[in-house]
């Protein structure tokens, strides 16, 4: 029997669009619930049917393997039905707008739309136009809240708390939604955030919201507790922001030599998919400081927590899982 405890009053959201708008309490709540789901799964439970009868659709306008798979698994483990919808198989090629597409899906009785899109703000637009729940699975370089949550969950699991930790996000900050979601979540939970990368991809304006910026990975290495190595988003770059991958790798690849300069208990994350040899070398990615695969496991747990919080029905589910007060509503249609 899974006991996820009495849900606090503070969760009132029907959508998860980004971490910027969440309070520290809301983020902590998601992480706490994710831990419960993770423990249940680790204990061998494959199904925790809190969303039986619900339908979640993955509305992906951009390619994704792991995020989509992770959401699908999370929804199925909660007993929901899932449906994949990708732009290439849709009416979008026939000129239908994406809002029409989403409204059509909603009219078929969908409860949760998990959306990924190349354009920032698209989940917000859907949330305004649909009655069901919308979860942002990445909107261009804007936010990717569940990725931010799972990164933070992984750090919290290893370190107990975020308070006072120095976390460096390294790489293509300009085009990274993972960076933005991490920045909001980490700051709210009391961590100090450094963004680090080439000056064409790291804006000094980050300092305006109390995020430290640095162009030198070597300079910051000795004082960071966590390194999150972000992928170079070649597909989002409209002009080449650095002369060559070789030069980038020379300046920013996390390799064994750089690892030697860090604190002994450094924690290394990478949201993936990783370019081995560019952001990180194999001996570091697969080494004892790396939590890369744990992030993937945590991803499913975080997404279960989010799905349950936005779409769970009050009073339904197994004993001890009373969602009263928490509860989300869009019990649609």
């Amino acid at each position, binding site marked *: 029997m899974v006991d996820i405890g009495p849900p606090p009053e503070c969760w009132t959201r029907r959508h998860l669009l980004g971490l910027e708008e969440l309070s520290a309490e809301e983020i902590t709540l998601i992480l706490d619930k994710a831990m419960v789901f993770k423990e249940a799964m680790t204990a061998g439970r494959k199904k925790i049917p809190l969303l039986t009868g619900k339908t979640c659709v993955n509305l992906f306008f951009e390619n994704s393997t792991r995020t989509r798979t992770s959401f699908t698994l999370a929804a199925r483990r909660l007993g929901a039905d899932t449906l994949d919808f990708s732009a290439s198989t849709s009416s979008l090629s026939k000129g239908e*707008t994406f809002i029409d597409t989403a409204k059509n899906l909603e009219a078929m009785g969908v409860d949760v739309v998990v959306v990924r*899109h190349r354009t920032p703000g698209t989940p917000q637009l859907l949330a305004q136009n649909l009655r069901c729940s919308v979860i942002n699975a990445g909107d261009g370089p804007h936010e990717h809240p569940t990725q931010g949550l799972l990164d933070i969950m992984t750090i919290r699991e290893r370190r107990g708390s975020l308070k006072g930790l120095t976390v460096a996000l390294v790489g293509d900050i300009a085009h990274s939604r993972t960076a933005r979601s991490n920045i909001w979540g980490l700051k709210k939970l009391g961590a100090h955030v450094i963004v680090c990368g080439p000056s064409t991809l790291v804006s000094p*304006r980050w300092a305006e*919201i109390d995020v430290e910026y640095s162009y030198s990975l070597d300079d910051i290495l000795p004082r960071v507790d966590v390194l999150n190595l972000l992928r170079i988003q070649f597909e989002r770059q409209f002009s080449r922001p650095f002369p060559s991958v070789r030069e980038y790798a020379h300046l920013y690849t996390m390799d064994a030599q750089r690892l030697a300069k860090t604190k002994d208990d450094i924690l290394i994350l990478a949201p993936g998919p990783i370019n081995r040899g560019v952001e990180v070398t194999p001996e570091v990615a697969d080494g004892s400081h790396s939590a890369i695969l744990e992030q993937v496991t945590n991803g499913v747990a975080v997404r279960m927590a989010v799905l349950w919080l936005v779409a769970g029905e009050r009073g339904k589910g197994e004993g001890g899982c009373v969602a009263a007060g928490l509860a989300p509503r869009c019990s649609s249609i």
Partner: protein
Amino acid sequence: MSTLIIKNGRVIDSSQQMDRVTNLLIADGRIAAYDAEPDDECTTIDAAGKIVSPGLIDMHVHLREPGSEEDETIATGTAAALAGGFTSIACMPNTDPPIDSQSIVEFIRGQAAKADNCNVFVVACVSKNREGKELAEIGQLVEAGAVAFTDDGSPINSPELMRRAFEYCLMFDKPVLNHSEIRELTEHGVMHEGLTSLILGLAGMPTAAEDVMASRDIALAEATGGRFHLMHVSTGGSVDAVRRAKRRGVRVTTEVCPHHFTLTDECLRSFDSNFKMNPPLRGKGHVQGCIDGLIDGTIDAIVSDHAPHAKEKKMQELDRAPFGIVGLETSLGLVVTRLIEPGHLDWPAALARMTCNPAQILNLDKGTLRIGADADVTIIDPKVRWTVDPAEFRSKSTNTPFAGWELTGRAEVVIVGGRVKFERKGEEGRGKGEDYCE
């Protein structure tokens, strides 16, 4: 002889430094006399408590016809102009086909005559097919009635073409208007590049894109002696470049849109495409730069850059939605609410930027209430509070960021060539079309 007398209005006409309460007599479509007394024959309009201005001029309007009649037509656009208080508008050439031939100029003038709303002056293309390569047949376009030249919708990118345009237009004494923007710096851009674009992950359009080309155009105007009009200035840097050029005696003028002295890039946090326009909404400092430019006279004109887009086009992802907002029906209210009420400009200074200044830039015999001038008159209620309701727009499109805004000041009566073409009747909530009096 048909006569009309506008009684007891505060007549503000900057073309003759006039600001006094008087009775204005209109006869045979012209301004006939001041301090006149009504007789039995003439129609009387009581303008007590109202402002009587030369008919307002908006020198930057997109009418979309021919080519995009789903967004606007010449008939609907000119009706919107009247409702906004404008007796004359200048329409931009980024139609389909573009206004690069006599026949298109004549078509537009013909449609405007048929619509019989306000005066329409045609701004034609600088380049053939608006392609930015070869000069259009500017001499013939002038003969057809074009009053100025621009490739608006796109910048005149080539410095060589810009130079030739300045030189060639000199012999017709026509200004060259440019949407000054280095496109290589704004490619894929959706909004102003700043902290907000950084946080939202939206591709930015840096101020340098405007500043660099505005400065280039000023240098070319200076070198050729040509007349340069910088369209829709939006950055403090460009305002300052114009200010310094004017001091040196360069023949440069500029204009600003109400949204650029009213809104900032932070509005994009809503991800609402009605805040997407080009030039984009800038930061607070630039908004202040525009206001400062209006106060010290660097900015000559206020224009709406009325850019109607059908709902289905705007209701797309932010990067796909087209740039631009409608503005004819909110322009005056924003000028009163955002410039006059806070004390940035007084009424004569504000109205000069919507009457005699644009007339002068385009060499129009308009924007004045001198005796003998065309009787284009706008009677404004300076005190009325009203709420912007896009459902009441005469424009075919409703893409405004100001829906629901409460504004002060609105045109009550609009007279074109001595004929009352628009009269606002009744209060809020009346249906479309009820305000027409003719």
